[in-house]
């Protein structure tokens, strides 16, 4: 099992690299944030694979945490793009 | 030790009322006295490991020297600062959290003085950095913000260097307990990793304590903080850095590890000379004294760089002296500002006629700073000069004496401008009693050390011995 998982990590790293590339290249801010979303998904995948390769479910907790927190970052990015913020209602 | 525990607890109360702050400072002072008593009587073994874990495993406080002695000094300064602050700190600043920040700062400083753990030391440095930043930005004036950015950037740089050094040491030894480290590192010669770690720690701590050329950010930060805080900066913050330097160089790595000595000597000489020289041309009093604060650290480093017990002894004595004197000098500047409305020498004057008691209380730290006997500064400088001669670095002694002459020149003109010169067209106001009382506490301490230096000298000697014993 572990061997296969190790191999599965490679495409994931490739995905990570691609997302990172888009994140840095842009060209627009929106592109970067799309890439950030992608990055989150890849990281969750990593957490799942690590859980399998170590046999510890604890890494699924990490996956959960990631899912929780990155949405907020995405939202913040989006609001940043719209330049709209929670000042005074 | 229990007293320290209670004090540590109370210190952290985020109380904002001045009364709470004053009471806490008083309690800490009493606790610190008990602590020093324990430290000198029981030897350096009074140890509390928080959480009740075995020594070298948990993080502990140890009432060893010189830390315990420095805690007493810092408690004294903080208490005097609280008294002084009665009139200097108004309700607006108190609402902004002045008291809580000062208490946090005191907690950080005392934590650093007492801790037995390298990483814990780093945590206290960060706490001190943040508390100091809070005090610097308390008034949110533009100059303060600029100073704060610089302060924060350099604080983080220094902390990073320290943390990197800690990482290397942990990687090599797998432990963070100071005593264990001293034993482990003392057994083997320097390796690339430990030598780098030592240099990083020394660099980071030199940055914290303001040694040349790591000092550039420091003098202006004194101009930015509200006065009693600036006094505490001068008295405690740079000395906290130097204390850690002392523990790292003389304790953890041991005086036998001489690979740092040549660099330290150059740094010390440069600090003494450059900063004493820089002080000459300053007209802003806070910057003037700020440069002297840094120059004084140079003297301590000179003592430490001798890598002899006598040198460490000198450094510890110098620390005790300099903490009290520099805090007091800043108190004095605050009082002058209160009376004349100016921080600039050109706008001050007439203090001796309007506030003769102030003039006396101010003269004590000034003369002590200049190293005039029989005040504490003289004995401190003497010990450094002697250690330098004895250690075969006569040039360092000469540098110390030249810097002392520059200091005298600068102090004399400060006295002349602030106290003697008459202030045309403006009435010089009375200095409030609370300010005088705060100064009196510290001036009294300076006089006491000057006239009865034996007690401090013994503590310094014991400290040097305790540091030397760490590794055995």
């Amino acid at each position, binding site marked *: *099992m572990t061997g*296969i*998982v190790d191999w*599965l990590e490679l*495409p*994931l790293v*490739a*995905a*990570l690299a*691609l*997302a990172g*590339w*888009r994140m840095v290249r*842009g*060209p*627009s*801010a*929106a*592109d970067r*944030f*799309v*890439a950030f*979303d*992608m990055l989150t*998904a*890849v990281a*969750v*995948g990593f957490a*799942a*694979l690590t*859980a*399998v390769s170590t*046999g510890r*479910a*604890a890494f*699924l*907790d990490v*996956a*959960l945490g*990631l*899912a*929780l927190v990155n*949405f907020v970052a*995405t*939202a913040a*990015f*989006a*609001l*940043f*793009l*719209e*330049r709209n913020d929670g000042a005074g209602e | 030790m229990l007293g320290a525990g209670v004090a540590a607890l109370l210190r952290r109360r985020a109380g904002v009322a001045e009364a709470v702050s004053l009471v806490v400072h008083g309690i800490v002072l009493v606790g610190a006295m008990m602590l020093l008593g324990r430290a000198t009587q029981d030897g350096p073994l009074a140890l509390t490991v928080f959480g009740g874990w075995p020594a070298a495993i948990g993080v502990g406080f140890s009432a060893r020297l010189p830390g315990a002695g420095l805690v007493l000094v810092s408690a004294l300064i903080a208490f005097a600062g609280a008294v002084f602050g009665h009139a200097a700190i108004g309700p607006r600043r108190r609402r902004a959290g002045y008291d809580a920040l000062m208490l946090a700062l005191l907690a950080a400083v005392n934590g650093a003085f007492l801790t037995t753990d390298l990483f814990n030391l780093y945590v206290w440095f960060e706490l001190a950095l943040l508390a100091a930043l809070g005090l610097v930005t308390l008034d949110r004036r533009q100059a303060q913000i600029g100073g704060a950015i610089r302060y924060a950037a350099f604080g983080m740089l220094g902390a990073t260097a320290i943390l990197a050094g800690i990482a290397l040491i942990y990687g090599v030894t797998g432990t963070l307990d100071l005593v264990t480290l001293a034993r482990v590192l003392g057994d083997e010669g320097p390796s690339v990793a430990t030598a780098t770690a030592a240099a990083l720690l020394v660099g980071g701590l030199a940055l914290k304590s303001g040694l040349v050329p790591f000092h550039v950010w420091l003098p202006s930060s004194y101009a930015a903080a509200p006065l009693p805080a600036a006094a505490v900066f001068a008295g405690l913050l740079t000395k906290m850095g130097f204390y850690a330097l002392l523990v790292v160089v003389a304790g953890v790595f041991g005086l036998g590890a001489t690979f740092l000595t040549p660099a330290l000597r150059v740094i010390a000489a440069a600090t003494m000379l450059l900063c004493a020289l820089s002080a000459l041309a300053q007209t802003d009093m806070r910057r003037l004294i700020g440069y002297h604060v840094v120059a004084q650290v140079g003297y301590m480093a000179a003592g430490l760089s001798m890598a002899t017990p006598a040198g460490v002894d000198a450094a510890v004595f110098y620390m005790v002296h300099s903490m009290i004197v520099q805090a007091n000098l800043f108190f004095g500047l605050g009082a002058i500002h209160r009376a004349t409305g100016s921080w600039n020498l050109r706008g001050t004057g007439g203090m001796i006629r309007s506030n003769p008691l102030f003039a006396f209380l101010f003269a004590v730290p000034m003369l002590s700073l200049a190293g005039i006997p029989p005040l504490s500064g003289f004995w401190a400088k003497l010990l450094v000069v002697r250690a330098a001669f004895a250690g075969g670095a006569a040039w360092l002694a000469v540098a110390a004496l030249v810097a002392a002459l520059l200091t005298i020149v600068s102090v004399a003109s400060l006295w002349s401008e602030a106290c003697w010169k008459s202030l045309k067209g403006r009435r010089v106001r009375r200095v409030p009693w609370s300010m005088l009382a705060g100064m009196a506490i510290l001036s009294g301490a300076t006089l006491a050390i000057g006239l009865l230096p034996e007690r401090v000298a013994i503590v310094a000697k014991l400290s040097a011995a305790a540091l030397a014993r760490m590794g055995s």
Partner: protein
Amino acid sequence: MIATLLMALGVLFLLIAAIGVIRLPDALQRMHSATKAGTLGTALTVAGAVLALRGEGVGSGALAVLFLLVTLPIGAQLLGRAAYRSGTTLKGIEQDALADDQERPGTSSVDRAGGDI
């Protein structure tokens, strides 16, 4: 075996999503790739992992997938409008029902936050 298959599929989708993020011509289209293929890939991978662990951590895994399913579309909507409004270049757009939206600056005048940076 099923677990491995699920994980492989999930990873594959993630990779495809990432390729989409690189290859698709504009931000809004890339977003399609990231949210859809990405969500599916993640869900499959986590499901496979839970299976491989014989049900251990099923709570966390299920919660994570659920949360992703809830948040990814919302994130996509947020980003989508934000991307649009920040004036990002839209390649080959054929119809724009939002063209009279006040918030979007002309694509030629580059907003300091959006635009090509």
